[in-house]
């Protein structure tokens, strides 16, 4: 009994000492705040996500050079969930409980976001998600800086239906087999039907993650497209499968003037390793393109090129490229900084309240606003055609920013859902 007491006291003393030492060293070094970076640096998604990690680090360097956030230096904690969805949840938990990060920037695929969501909700963390996605979600613990379907998918399909886009009448919905393509295609199917497209004029195809052989798929598209009406392909293929897909597309000579392919997850970075000459004219819909002409973008591109060179980032040091999710990441981190400064606290609940209505002059030259309620950004939509050099020509854009509709009106029952997160904590009270 006595002995146990002694051990307890010892442990207590030790922990007190540890706390004392901890705070002591904090004072000695100056104040810091940790943020988490949760992007796949290996595996099938590394092609897209690695550069987002570097974008966060660039923004952190910039902010730290200007004195940090509220006098705190930002200390990024980078982890690699390796395109492995359960590992995302594990790493998220580690970031929140061990590293005690104030905020996390991370995830690309919706399946990874769905996997970390319960962790952020349980531990009341804060996640900034920078990629376009299928909607159908508003969490109080997540801010979505990428596009919802009405800010990307729907305008893209509308464009292809228009005279300028080629008046497409038949549709191939092609995607990687997981939640984002499946849900987006469900929305698009409902949208197309509302526009009078018959069931027989829609073909849906899925491939596994990391799929590398697109011969039969392209053959199917060719067959489908020669059955009477102008056909367009909507691609929600994600990750490095895009490289073999576009290589096969080019080699088999499916030209954009005959069957245009519009992609939602393919940008400058994904096309880096592909010979884009046979792909000229195929499309992508985003809220940012590297080729957008604005002084803010020129400045940002220069900044990124200098950073990539200084940090010796593979690929980017010789040929710096920027893309939409990088811009969304960049907007996210600056908005978080502004919200912290407004709230005068790193506390998640206070920052969340302060995020509502934040604005930031984005590199695209457009001032993005975080919606007061629904945790999504107001964004302008651009549609670009691939050029021979792998960049995009903007052929269509919205007049100004569009408010996100995370609950797509094309999914049954969504009209009853509230355009703001349900605050579970309040319900419990």
């Amino acid at each position: 009994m006595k002995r146990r007491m002694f051990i307890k006291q010892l442990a207590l003393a030790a922990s007190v000492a540890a706390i004392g030492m901890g705070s002591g060293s904090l004072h000695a070094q100056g104040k810091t705040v940790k943020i988490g970076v949760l992007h796949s640096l290996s595996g099938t998604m590394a092609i897209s996500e690695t550069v987002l990690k570097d974008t966060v680090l660039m923004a952190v360097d910039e902010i730290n050079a200007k004195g940090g956030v509220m006098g705190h230096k930002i200390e990024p904690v980078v982890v690699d969930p390796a395109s492995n969805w359960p590992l995302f949840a594990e790493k998220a938990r580690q970031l929140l409980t061990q590293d005690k990060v104030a905020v996390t920037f991370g995830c690309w695929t919706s399946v990874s976001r769905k996997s970390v969501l319960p962790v952020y909700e349980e531990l009341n963390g804060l996640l900034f998600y920078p990629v376009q996605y299928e909607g159908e979600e508003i969490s109080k613990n997540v801010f979505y800086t990428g596009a919802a379907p009405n800010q990307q998918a729907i305008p893209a399909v509308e464009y292809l239906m228009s005279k300028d886009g080629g008046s497409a009448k038949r549709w191939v919905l092609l995607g990687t087999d997981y939640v984002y393509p499946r849900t987006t295609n469900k929305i698009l199917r409902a949208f197309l039907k509302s526009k009078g497209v018959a069931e027989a004029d829609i073909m849906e195809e899925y491939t596994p993650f990391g799929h590398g052989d697109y011969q039969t798929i392209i053959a199917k598209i060719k067959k489908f497209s020669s059955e009477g009406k102008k056909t367009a392909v909507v691609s929600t293929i994600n990750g490095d499968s895009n490289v073999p897909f576009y290589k096969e597309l080019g080699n088999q000579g499916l030209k954009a003037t005959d069957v245009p392919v519009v992609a939602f997850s393919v940008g400058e970075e994904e096309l880096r390793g592909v010979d884009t000459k046979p792909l000229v004219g195929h499309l992508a819909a985003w809220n940012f393109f590297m080729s957008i002409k604005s002084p803010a973008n020129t400045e940002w591109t220069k900044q990124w090129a200098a950073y990539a060179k200084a940090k010796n980032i593979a690929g980017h040091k010789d040929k710096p490229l920027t893309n939409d999710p990088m811009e969304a990441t960049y907007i996210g981190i600056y908005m978080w900084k502004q919200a912290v400064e407004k709230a005068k606290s790193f506390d998640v609940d206070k920052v969340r309240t302060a995020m509502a209505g934040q604005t930031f002059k984005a590199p695209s030259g457009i001032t993005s606003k975080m919606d007061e309620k629904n945790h999504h950004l107001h964004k302008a939509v651009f549609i670009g055609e691939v050029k021979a050099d792998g960049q995009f020509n903007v052929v269509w854009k919205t007049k100004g920013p569009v408010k996100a509709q995370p609950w797509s009106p094309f999914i049954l029952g969504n009209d009853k859902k509230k355009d703001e997160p349900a605050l579970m904590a309040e319900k419990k009270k």
Partner: protein
Amino acid sequence: MKKLLLALLLTFAGTAAAIDKAAVEKLATGDADQRSAAISALVAEADPRAVEVLGALAEGEMQTVAGKDGAQRVLIVKGEEAVDAVTGEKITPLPEEREDLIANNRLRGQVEGALAALKLLSPDRAARLKAVKQLAAGADEALLPLVQKALARETDAGIKPALELIAASLEMKSGSKEARIAAIQRLATSSSPNSRTLLAAAASDPDADIKYEAQKALREVQGRLAWGERAGLLFAGVSLGSILLLAALGLAITYGLMGVINMAHGELIMIGAYTTYAVQVAFRGSAWFDWYLLLAVPSSFAVSAAVGMALERSVVRWLYGRPLETLLATWGISLILIQSVRTLYGAQNVQVENPAFMSGGIEAFAGVVLPWSRISIIAFAALVLLGMWLLLTRTRLGLYVRGVTQNREMAACVGVPTGRVDAWAFGLGSGLAGLAGCALSQIGNVGPDLGQGYIVDSFMVVVFGGVGQLAGTVYAALVLGFANKLLESWSGAVIAKIVVLVFIIIFIQRRPQGMFALRGRSVEA
């Protein structure tokens, strides 16, 4: 409007008028419909300068610059040289504030079609042939007068039928009922996917006669196209089979003949792919870039073989006859190899560019394009197979390898240095994996995880074909490749993968020895 302009063109063709300034300006500043009309106007000029302007628009070489008087000046910029699009005069120095003129798919399609149509009158046969091929994929109706004129002039038997089909496809859309029916009957002889599109649309025509003819023609065209599709599917199956064969051949030696469960086989493939990448990097920018594969093939073989032999001498040879330990040890090695490549080259995929002769494809059947990269890999797989067969059956090393694998003790008794043969054989298997990596780098992604995607497939092929049977490996690769592609075309890629795995599980349960059983007095048996 368009037709009128084209009619004008036919009347005045040859009289080179000054290029229409208003049209060029409309091309630069108008809305989409105005720009489209401007293109038609320029086509009507049929002037070499107009052709140049249109070509520049399609190539994305057109830019505008604000002139002194505030009006937009349209330039054609090629590299560092600029000329005025209207006058053709050279502009030096290159103005700073230039705006790109963008042609979207609609305009580019129109320009390309028009340019091709203009080339139909070219005296050069090759240019005409190219133009005909391009227009066969779909042409604008406004080009009909031009096509008809070309048809009247054309005498070449290789071009005329194709040109007739193009004319028919354009007459299908417009013209009298008789003309349309004649066009439909002509299209019935065609075997291009474009004809199917047109006929399928006409097959639901309100006019009963046209509907009947179109449906009849559609059946004929579809019948021909179906053969092309089947041939395309067969090719896809053979192509996947050749890739599986390349990936599995090495394993057929290390696992099939030597009995080593080599979980690091995939990583040896990956090392071959990275070697190809390294060779390619060394060649980048040189005039010999297109030939880098000539060096990449032997290097990938040598590097993988060296790694394999080192592996055999240091780890595997102590574990012969202990499959479980071999499995664990080689799996551990595979992780070490992945991580070392990750450290050396980074976790991201690296880009291996195809040499120029491997991009694009050949149209073997109507609507079926066989990519050169895949054709090359099939040929490469066949060569590797031939080489290996010669090595195993015609050389002393091959004799030793077969001897040692069939009866190690007896081989040792008659003086075969079994240890050295093991090392050579393992090196050969690993080198073949390296060759597979070199081939795979041409069609897929090259990253540290490359091998993980092929290890299961490789084992599947070897086990399915029958362990210890090289011929079995060949058949198994082709059967699996073909089955996979056939299922994919029916049920989609996800289901196809599952069905193939289920099939293999059932097959191996029923016939554990694989497709081809090893007969005779094997040591293990």
